[in-house]
């Protein structure tokens, strides 16, 4: 008996809008497609918008000129407003310019979106089974490490070595995710804790690998691996731009995961386990196996995402190659509402934000870290539709199902 049982059959939050409670009850049988699409886009769009507004405030009030102008507000109020608007305008237009302002910018955005989409799928897929995969970072590290190793040590023809790199990277990620899945399935160890630990372990393994002769060019102490062989690099398809075939891998993965989730028996089982493991078990599904497999597949996706980086844009393996991409992936999955196409859109958005932030820092000296704040706020608003409703006084439709993970207390 849980507290959830008592809330069955009620509107998501009846206390919020007493008047709205009545209207949400009288739902039409099936609203038209465009109506549902519009409703399901409301929260993400408002979330991104709100995050950008808060980001703008942050930009304004850490700028010395703006602060100075505000300090003299009563002497020259227009100047304060004008300085604030200019600062934000300059920052955001540089951001936009760096994201989509030129073919080179778009190429860079796509390049940055590739691993985010793949790792975002990794988090989203696990969410479908109510598993919270915080371990995308570690899985990406393992993927990048093994793919790079294949990329500089296997001396076989081009397409084969690329394939080998991608497969090895995917498998490495799958093993890393699978460990968490198997531990969850057999001992009940919570995946949040195990994946956090596995993230650290992967980071140290990479740091260690970058001290060994297998990874380093002979005679250097720098933790930068041997360069990936030219035939092992992902081919670029627009001359002069850095974007490579990785983006098509990401698109393919989106379609594949959509198919698995929506059209395959296994996807149905994954979702069943996520919605109610007890019912799934009662229906004869092997919950433990499905849990372990889900984490392994998630890990494989993140591993593939990690693999695309060394054999794509960077061409070498470094200790910081993944950075915090695996955590950005969590934001991508949340913003995409765990829907593969949503993840695609969110990944493209975050790729563009990350690419644009670099241009913004170069042109306006505003630190790129502002993007992390914006991402945090996006997660927050997406995760709390009630908050968005409260701020904007809008209804967001019944399609709004809050996202839940399996916390410590449950199965």
């Amino acid at each position, binding site marked *: *008996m*849980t*507290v959830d049982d*008592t*809330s069955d059959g009620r509107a998501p939050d009846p206390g919020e809008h007493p008047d709205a409670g009545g209207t949400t009850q009288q739902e039409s049988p099936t609203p038209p497609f465009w109506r549902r699409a519009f409703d399901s886009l409301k929260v993400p769009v408002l979330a991104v918008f709100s995050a950008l507004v808060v980001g703008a405030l*942050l930009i304004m009030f*850490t700028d010395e000129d703006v602060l100075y102008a505000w300090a003299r507000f009563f002497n020259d109020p227009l100047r304060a407003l004008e300085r604030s608007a200019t600062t934000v305008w300059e920052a955001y237009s540089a951001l936009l310019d760096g994201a989509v302002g030129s073919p080179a910018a778009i190429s860079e955005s796509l390049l940055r979106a590739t691993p985010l989409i793949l790792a975002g799928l990794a988090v989203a897929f696990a969410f479908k089974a109510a598993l*919270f995969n915080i371990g995308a970072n570690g899985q990406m590290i393992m993927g990048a490490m093994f793919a790079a190793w294949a990329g500089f040590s296997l001396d076989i023809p081009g397409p084969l070595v690329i394939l080998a790199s991608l497969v090895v990277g995917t498998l490495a990620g799958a093993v890393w995710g699978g460990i968490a899945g198997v*531990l969850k399935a*057999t*001992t*009940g*160890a*919570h995946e*949040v*804790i*195990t994946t*956090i*630990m*596995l993230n*650290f*372990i992967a980071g*140290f*393994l990479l*740091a*260690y690998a970058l*001290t060994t002769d297998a990874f380093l060019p002979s005679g250097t102490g720098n933790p930068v691996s041997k360069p990936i062989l030219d035939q092992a690099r992902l081919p670029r398809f627009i001359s002069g731009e850095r974007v490579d075939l990785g983006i098509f891998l990401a698109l393919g993965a989106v379609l594949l995961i959509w198919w698995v989730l929506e059209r395959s028996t296994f996807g149905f089982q994954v979702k069943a386990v996520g919605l109610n493991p*007890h019912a799934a*078990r009662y229906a004869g599904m092997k919950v*433990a196996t499905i849990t372990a497999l889900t984490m392994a597949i998630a890990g494989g996706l993140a591993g593939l995402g990690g693999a695309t980086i060394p054999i794509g844009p960077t061409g070498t393996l470094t200790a910081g190659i993944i950075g*915090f991409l695996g*955590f950005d992936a*969590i*934001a991508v999955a949340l913003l995409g509402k765990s829907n593969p196409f949503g993840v695609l859109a969110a990944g493209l958005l975050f790729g563009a934000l990350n690419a644009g932030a670099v241009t913004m820092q170069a042109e306006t000296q*505003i*630190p790129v*870290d*502002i*993007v*992390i*704040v*914006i*991402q*945090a*706020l996006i*997660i*927050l608003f997406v*995760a*709390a539709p*009630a*908050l968005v409703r409260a701020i904007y006084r809008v209804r967001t439709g019944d399609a709004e199902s*809050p*996202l*839940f*993970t399996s*916390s*410590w*207390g*449950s*199965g």
Partner: protein
Amino acid sequence: MTDTSSSGTQPEASVSTGTKSTDKQTADAAVAAEARRRATRRGIIWLFTGVAVIWLFAIGVDTSISSTFDLSTTTDLTLTVPSAATVWVLGGVIVALGVLQIVRPLGASGYLSVLVVILAVMAFLTWAGRDQAFSLVGMLQSTVTRATPLALGALAGVLCERSGVVNIAIEGMMLFSAFLAAFAASASGSLWVGMAVGVFGGAALAWGHAGLSVTYKVDQIISGTAINFFATGITAYLAASVLTSNPQLNRSGTFDNWSLPLLGDIPFIGEFLFDNNIYVYTMYVLLPLVTWMLFRSRWGLRVRSVGEHPRAADTVGINVLRTRYHSVILGGMAAGLAGSFLPLGSVGSFQEDMTAGRGFIALAVMIFGRWNPVGALGAALLFGFAESLNSKLAILGTPIPSEFLLMAPYVVTLFVVAGFGGRARPPAADGQPYETN
């Protein structure tokens, strides 16, 4: 769904079908058999540990070699033991414990596990310090210091989770308060102001966490993730935009060590336990205090009832939501204290991402310590020990790569979470939003 957290699948299945007494008896028998298997498995692990200790650290070590431990930094108090013989004795005790455990399960095997770990570590130190002098007192002092933020962070987790709110935002709260503490201490020139502002910062983020997860019923893990993101982003952003151009705002300095009268004069023990900074003493006070409050006071009973069965608590008139708010904010203050330790108790300034995962380790420490402040202290000491061991071993020059030593606590946590998982039971309603009627 609420009670069998992580104890595998069988008990859960039997609970959901078990309605008649016969079912209950078979369920009890199954649980007993499971406990017996677990005890035997633990015995086997001990046995292997003992054998490994002897094999790795005693075999092949010349019997004439001895290890010397420095027991004091001020006087020349030392302890010298023959290396190989000592390892044989320590390993032998572990093997004996393992055999006993397999033959007939010993009680208090949790404590015995800790003992086994301590014995194995002692054997390892004896081996690592063979043929040279090793500052035991220095290492123990750094163990206590490094354990402090972990224990305080775990305390934050205990306070939140006992009331039924999962807190994976300890990392973010610590980072945010580390920033505020360094900034406030530098701006005001007073470390105490820095500490207070740090505690306030932790409380502020905790208030946000409570608002999201208790009032808006956002999934608590997602709310925690958002807070971690926010703290990482905002501190990195402010550090880059404000602190780099104004370095005078990031020179907090640290609290001095302060030797307690009488206690600090005890040889060896006094040196590493009672010659520390204010944070360590605060931890000494807070851990027993919170333990007493949680398990002996009316307030603690209310907090725990809200975490175990909020509906029942509500029925007897306890305000579930308010209790959760209070506990989460108190927890945030503890996290804030832990975070302010980093600049004010150890480093002397704020550095980007200076928590470096300590908040997550604190989370593991909390689970390791079974949602109990005293257990958390033990686990924190273990992690602190592993960290300080690593820095000392770099000096001793063991053949083990430092990455593996740094990795060790995380691997141990992984095993512990997996191994003790079935026995570490979180509060029953942990992680579930409460709907008031």
